[in-house]
Structures are given as structure tokens and as C-alpha cells.
């Protein structure tokens, strides 16, 4: 009996050897402690500063800028939802638009049924998004890469068709979503809606950042790197993959609900494959490797059409040229533009803007490194 017990107890680990007995190994890449801090930190800080500045500008700027800010924040949330799946857990899907639609239609249907409490609507949307996300993860258990992408494409079209049918039955002009009120206070007026969605974005961002530090984030990271290696290391691949799809669905659906509030209705035409493509473009443009990159990409892609419409059209007018061709065909041209950006990014800078910034940073670092005395780096332990 005692021998059996001995067999079962793990070998105890002895006390650590003295520091001098430990093997000495030098890291391959030196220069980690240069004046700029860890590699990638300055690039991140730049992006964070730019987003903060933009966020404040939208909050205190003109109503037009505020409107753009709203859209940027809402799509920022959707981009975070997609980032969680694509960047975080390494799965690929092109159904972000469908999940935004799920959130919007959940809000519309609930409002139609007389339920107008914002928090109830938000929670129900998240739950529905979670559930559908879980289901959408099932093909992910069997397929990877292109096949998974095709499965998500199918989901996109199924959702488009269902939302069309629902809209025809309930309210062909779109499901009305009433102005947002919380405890009798109107949040649809002035900048209050902007601040509300910004708070929701910050909360979701903070939750994701916190989650990344827990085992959930670590499991997703392992999945992203290699499913087989993750499985051999003890990660329950099936479970964490499904949760990634589900959580992504919930966040993206919340974005859809907020979008429906911002335009006052849920209309199936707003959640097409074009939205899915633009969401993926946001991720890859900013840098799919990080949350901050996803937000950065979301702001650029969301603000770009407004910029074209208001600023570039003025340039054209000043030059005596017509800009009607753009204003009249905006959605089609934007879709083409986003797809072109997507292809260009994938071809030339797969790490997106963040990758470009890090390259810039590396250049600046090499300047520092040439000046520092040679022996000062690479000393470890």
C-alpha cells in the first residue's frame, strides 16, 4: 500500500540551487533595456495617446465630430469583438456584420415587444450573441483556415436572410429602437450618447485586458499559436475555442445594439457582408496582434468615409471638380476602398499600422544602440 502511495506522489522538487550554480545563458536579442523601454512599448503608447486625443476631441468638438466619434466607438467595440476571435484566439471568421445585426435586431424586437430598459436590452443582446457565437464555433471544431471562413460566410448570409424575413414581418421600414433613456434620463441627446458608448467601450476593453492575464487569455493565446501544441500542453481546445466564438459574438452583438440605438432603428441592410469585411479590415489595418491596434484601425476605417465626404469633397469643389460620383455611390466605393486597403495591408504590412510603428521604433532604437558602448548590453543574470 505504501509503495502504491509512493508511486502516486509526485517527486518533490528540491530547493533551488545557489545563483552561481545556475547555467548562464545570454539572450539572443540584446538591447531590451534601451532608453525606449521594451520593444513595441513606444508604438503602443503612441496609439493610446492618439486614441485618447481623438476621444476627447470627439467629446468636446462640434456635433459633427461627435457623431463621427459615436460611430468610431461603436465600431471600436465591434472590432474588439472580432479581435477577440481573430487576434486573440487565432480563429478566422467573416461574420462580424451578422453578429452586429443580431444585436440590433434583438434590440428592435425587444423594443417592439414593449421592453425598453436599456440594460435589459443590452444583456439580452449579449446573451443571444453569446449563444449564436457558441453555435457558430461548432464548425470551428472541425475546420480551420479557409473552410472555417466559408462556414462563417454561410452564417453571415443566413443571418442576413433571417433578418430580412423578420423585418418584412414586423416592420418593413426597419424595427424602431426608441431613444435611449436610463432611469428617465435621456441619453440620446447631445454628447451624452457618445460618453455612454465610450464608457461601455472602456469597460469592455478593460475586461478583455484583464481576461488576457487570466488563464482564459493564456488558453486563447496557446490556441492561436498551435492547436495541437496547446492540446498537448493541456488546453481543452474544444472548450476554449467555443468560448472564444461565444464571447466574440456577445461583444459584437453589443456593438450592434448600440449602433441600432445610434440610428434609431434596426435595418437588415445595415449588417451585410460589407460590414464584416470592414471589421476585418479594421483589425488588419491597425494590427491584428493587439487590442489597441484593432481600435486604431476601427477609428481610421470608420472616420475615413466622413473625411472623404466632408473634407475631400471641399478640396474637389475648390479645384472646380465634381465629387458627386463619390457621394452618389458611397457604400459601393467604400466597400471597394476597404477591400483594397485590406489586400494592401495583407500584402505589404501584415502587422498593420502597429507593425509600421514598431519598424519606425526599431529604426530609432538602432540609432541609440550605435551610440551606447558595446559591452553594456546582453549582460544577463
Amino acid at each position: 500500500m505504501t509503495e502504491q502511495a509512493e508511486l502516486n506522489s509526485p517527486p518533490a522538487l528540491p530547493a533551488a540551487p545557489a545563483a552561481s550554480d545556475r547555467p548562464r545563458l545570454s539572450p539572443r536579442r540584446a538591447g531590451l533595456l534601451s532608453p525606449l523601454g521594451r520593444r513595441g512599448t513606444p508604438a503602443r503608447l503612441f496609439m493610446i495617446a492618439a486614441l485618447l486625443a481623438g476621444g476627447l476631441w470627439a467629446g468636446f468638438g462640434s456635433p459633427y465630430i461627435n457623431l463621427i466619434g459615436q460611430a468610431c466607438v461603436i465600431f471600436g467595440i465591434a472590432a474588439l469583438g472580432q479581435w477577440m476571435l481573430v487576434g486573440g484566439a487565432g480563429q478566422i471568421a467573416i461574420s462580424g456584420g451578422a453578429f452586429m445585426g443580431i444585436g440590433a435586431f434583438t434590440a428592435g424586437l425587444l423594443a417592439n415587444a414593449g421592453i425598453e430598459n436599456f440594460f435589459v436590452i443590452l444583456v439580452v443582446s449579449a446573451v443571444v450573441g453569446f449563444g449564436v457565437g457558441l453555435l457558430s464555433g461548432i464548425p470551428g471544431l472541425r475546420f480551420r483556415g479557409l473552410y472555417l471562413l466559408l462556414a462563417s460566410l454561410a452564417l453571415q448570409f443566413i443571418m442576413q436572410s433571417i433578418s430580412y424575413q423578420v423585418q418584412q414581418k414586423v416592420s418593413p421600414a426597419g424595427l424602431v429602437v426608441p431613444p435611449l433613456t436610463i432611469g428617465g434620463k435621456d441619453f440620446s441627446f447631445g454628447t451624452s450618447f457618445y460618453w455612454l458608448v465610450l464608457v461601455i467601450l472602456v469597460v469592455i476593453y478593460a475586461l478583455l485586458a484583464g481576461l488576457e492575464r487570466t488563464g482564459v487569455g493564456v488558453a486563447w493565446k496557446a490556441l492561436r499559436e498551435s492547436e495541437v501544441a496547446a492540446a498537448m500542453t493541456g488546453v481543452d481546445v474544444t472548450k476554449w475555442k467555443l468560448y472564444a466564438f461565444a464571447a466574440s459574438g456577445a461583444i459584437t452583438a453589443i456593438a450592434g445594439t448600440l449602433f441600432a440605438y445610434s440610428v434609431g432603428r434596426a435595418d437588415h441592410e445595415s449588417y451585410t457582408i460589407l460590414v464584416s469585411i470592414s471589421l476585418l479590415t479594421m483589425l488588419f489595418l491597425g494590427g491584428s496582434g493587439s487590442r489597441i491596434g484593432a481600435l486604431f484601425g476601427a477609428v481610421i476605417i470608420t472616420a475615413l468615409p466622413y473625411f472623404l465626404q466632408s473634407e475631400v469633397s471641399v478640396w474637389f469643389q475648390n479645384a472646380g471638380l465634381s465629387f458627386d460620383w463619390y457621394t452618389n455611390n458611397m457604400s459601393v466605393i467604400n466597400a471597394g476602398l476597404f477591400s483594397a486597403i485590406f489586400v494592401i495591408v495583407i500584402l505589404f504590412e501584415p502587422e498593420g499600422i502597429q507593425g509600421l510603428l514598431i519598424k519606425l521604433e526599431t529604426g530609432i532604437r538602432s540609432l541609440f544602440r550605435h551610440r551606447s558602448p558595446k559591452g553594456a548590453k546582453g549582460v544577463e543574470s
Partner: protein
Amino acid sequence: MTATLEVATLEVQHVDVELGGVSILRDISFDVRPGQTLGIVGPNGAGKTTILNVISAVVPTVKGQVLFKGRPLGQLRPHRVRDLGIGRSLQSTHYFHDMTVLNLVSLGSLRNTVWGALRFSDHRKLARRGEPSRAAEVLDLLGLTHYADRPLGELSTAVQKLVDMARALAVGTDLVLLDEPTSGVSGAERGVVTTALSKLRELGVTIVLIDHDPGFVMANCDQLMAMNFGEVLKIGNPREVMDSPEVRQSYLGDSQY
């Protein structure tokens, strides 16, 4: 012999494996007793990694079975095998470059439930509070503590190999499977890996050790199994196995290609 009491930690019995319709392993049998190291040598493509894949349940068997402490592993999924206390290092260092050393080594203690995973971050705090954490102990043992917060991709191959070994040891309370711990490691740094391996052996960890370098395996195992073309050539005392004509022939034969 106290055969009645001594349960082998690992028993592989008449295992056949086919992948994509091709027979990869045929009638593989061996066992590993507690605290012992079984070395497996064989040329590239002999099926060494596949044997570990069978034990860690990522590859199905056509025939035969694997017993762990006398119980068949059956149809367990890979993470359940980990839960039994079987740790495994990976032949390739291409994985997990974004993850920090501590995260990676702690991965083995990740509970696959939402609540368990959410509490995973407490690992660091445990160490700070002075409470024991196997990941921290293992890092300490292998002299990796000061790399804890570094992403794996920033480290040299030798350190990556050590980290991988640490990851396997953190999980493998009862059995550690090491797949080519010296591959890609330059001559000067090989000693570091050898030192780490002897520490594991001194602790009495049960090990299956694979390497393409027969000299390295021979010097670091209690039992040696030589294989080629998916079959066991010979198994037994390391010296005898290496000196046996059929093994010598297979190695000589190989050097001609």
C-alpha cells in the same frame, strides 16, 4: 523481483498506428518503471515522435493499448492525459513565441473550467505570498526564474528548450516525455540541456527520452529502445542495445543515404 508490487508507470502494448492510410508504427511494446528513464533512438522518420503522440492521445491507435499506472488511457482527450500528470516537451521550438516563460510553464496547471481559468492569474500572487507553486519551483530548479517575464521568442534555442522541458516537468508529476531536447542546440549549449536532464533524473522523475543523437540518449537513460521504420529493433541495457548487430547495421545502413 518484486513484480507483484511494482506497477510500471507506463506500458505500451502491441501498438499499431496508421496515418493517412500509411502504417507508421507496428507492434510497439515497452514499459517504463517508476523513476526510470527510457531512451528511444532511431533515425529521422522512424516513428519516435508518433509514439509520444500516441501516449499524449493526439494520434489514435489501430491496435494495442497504452496503460498508465496499470489503467488503460483508452479514449481520453489530450488535456485529460495532461490531467493525469503526464507532461510532454515538443520537438519543435516554433510554438508559443508570444507567451512569457511563466505563462507557458504555468499553462500546465491551467484548469479547463471558467472559474479555474479565471483564478489562474493567482499563480504569480501565490509566489509573492511565499506559497509554493510548482511552476515557480520548476523555473527555479532549471535556473530560469529571471526569464519568467520574457516572451519565449526573445530567447535562444537552448533556453527555449529548457523552458519547454520546464513546461513538461511542471505538468509531468508522474511522467515526462521529452522529444529531442537537444535538437537545434549548439555544441556549447548542449551541456545546459544535459545538466537539466540529470537534475530531472536525480529527482526520480520517470522519463521517456527521445533524441536523434544516440550518444546523448545512451548516456542519459536506464533502458534503451532502438527502432527503425516504425518497428522496435531492440530494447534493453543501453550498451548492449547499441552494440547489437541489428542496431549497428541500421545505423550504418542509414549513413549511406
